């Protein structure tokens, strides 16, 4: 049985959740622990925290946050953003994160993927890939880094398959063409990557409706779907998402 996962993504700056999460009765909309617990009770399957902290001085805050979340919340969570070295990853995993996701640093130095997966197992190592359509890339998609600002000239398909070889346990695939548009996942990109790798793929970027989540699994063939704003701003609950997915014939863990 293949069971699709629904994963809310929270942006974190210096240990605080930013871009507001709009739950009813929330005491502190910036508290990662309270929000994580809320999403757990709503039926989220996992959580992703994306650390957008600009200054590396605040890395300790992110480690403390990982510990605080792990103390109180008993579903898996991933932390990504700004992980440059094995030691960065080690500190987060030891603090209680289940997985770390690497992006720019892994493109720059692919060996990082091997180092993390060797020490902690490939299940701990998510490779986040930001892709944008590009006629020059053989697969039609090129890898971008630095939050989608920097071209790499690397073909997306080539990178995900080598990331898997290096020990990635999961691919978090974001379409930079769709991110923030609410037009839905880039399904062509998603299905291409899902079929090319033997590890699970999380689709990301572009979710605006519940049907987009459905399409990510049925047409995009993703193993998990990630979204931020539709959940945070109270447009939809996790339960509504799962109900819609189940109605479409997708197996989900009921909320």
């Amino acid at each position, binding site marked *: *049985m*293949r*069971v*699709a*996962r629904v994963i809310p993504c929270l942006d974190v700056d210096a240990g605080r959740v930013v871009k507001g999460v709009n739950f009813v009765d929330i005491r502190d909309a910036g508290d990662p622990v309270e929000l994580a617990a809320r999403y*757990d009770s709503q039926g989220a*399957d996992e959580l992703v925290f994306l650390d957008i902290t600009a200054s590396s001085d605040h890395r300790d805050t992110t480690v403390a946050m990982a*510990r605080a979340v*792990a*103390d*109180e919340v*008993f*579903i*898996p969570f991933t932390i990504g953003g700004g992980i440059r070295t094995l030691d960065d990853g080690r500190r987060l*995993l*030891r*603090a*209680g*994160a*289940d997985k770390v996701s690497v992006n720019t640093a892994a493109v720059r130095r692919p060996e990082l993927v091997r180092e993390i997966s060797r*020490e*902690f*197992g*490939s*299940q*701990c190592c998510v490779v986040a890939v930001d892709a944008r359509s590009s006629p020059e890339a053989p697969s039609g998609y090129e890898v971008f880094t630095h939050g989608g600002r920097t071209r790499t000239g690397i073909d997306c398909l080539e990178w995900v398959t080598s990331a898997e070889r290096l020990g990635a*346990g*999961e691919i978090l695939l974001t379409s930079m063409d769709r991110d923030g548009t609410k037009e839905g996942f880039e399904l062509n990109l998603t299905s291409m990557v899902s079929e090319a790798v*033997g*590890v*699970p793929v999380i689709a990301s970027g572009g979710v605006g409706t519940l049907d987009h989540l459905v399409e990510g699994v049925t047409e995009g063939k993703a*193993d*998990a779907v990630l979204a931020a704003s539709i959940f945070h701003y109270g447009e939809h609950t996790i339960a509504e998402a799962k109900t819609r997915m189940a109605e479409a014939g997708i197996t989900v*863990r009921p909320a």
Partner: protein
Amino acid sequence: MTGRPLVAILDYGIGNLHSAQKGFEHAGADARLTADRGLIDAADGVVLPGVGAFAPCMAALGRTGLDDATCEVVASGRPFMGICVGMQVLFAGSDEAPGTPGLGVFDREVRWIPGPVKRPQMQWNVLDRRLDHPMLAGLDDPVWAYFVHSLAPETGDGADVVATCDYGGPVVAAVARDNVWAAQFHPEKSSRVGLRILANFVAAAGAAGAG
């Protein structure tokens, strides 16, 4: 006396044990991460967690002497629980590490999950009960648990298989024999269901400690 059963979580330097400790605390235990033999001997229940790969886990158990400690606890009759790779090392060996013997508590092998499925299985899945066992007491079907694994123990004659899950066919999800419980899934990551499973173990530890 705290009244909370003492659960020793074997700390052999592998991965993230923080969640396991916190999970057992939430489940009512005085849970300690330890490699100290005195504390392990004093514990009402002992837990062997494990993440990553079979061979590094076995090597770390050997380095810390916790391989022998595990076998002694198993033989002592005190409640014992293996989780994920901490379950797999209780078996005789693994496809993942040919030539590296396991602890042999269960006399069969751990195999790659067969078939055209994604490995690892990284998802929630339903536990199909095969035995009526206290591990899953108080839980209504369907029982959903979180799995992250590419290998699983052989079924054997099935006499010790508490539950399987369906992942391209039946995959062993939990086994138990006498005082030994073992879960392929992560109860400490399985939300309310998982905390109940941990509480069931804490209750067994408490009952054994009181007896």
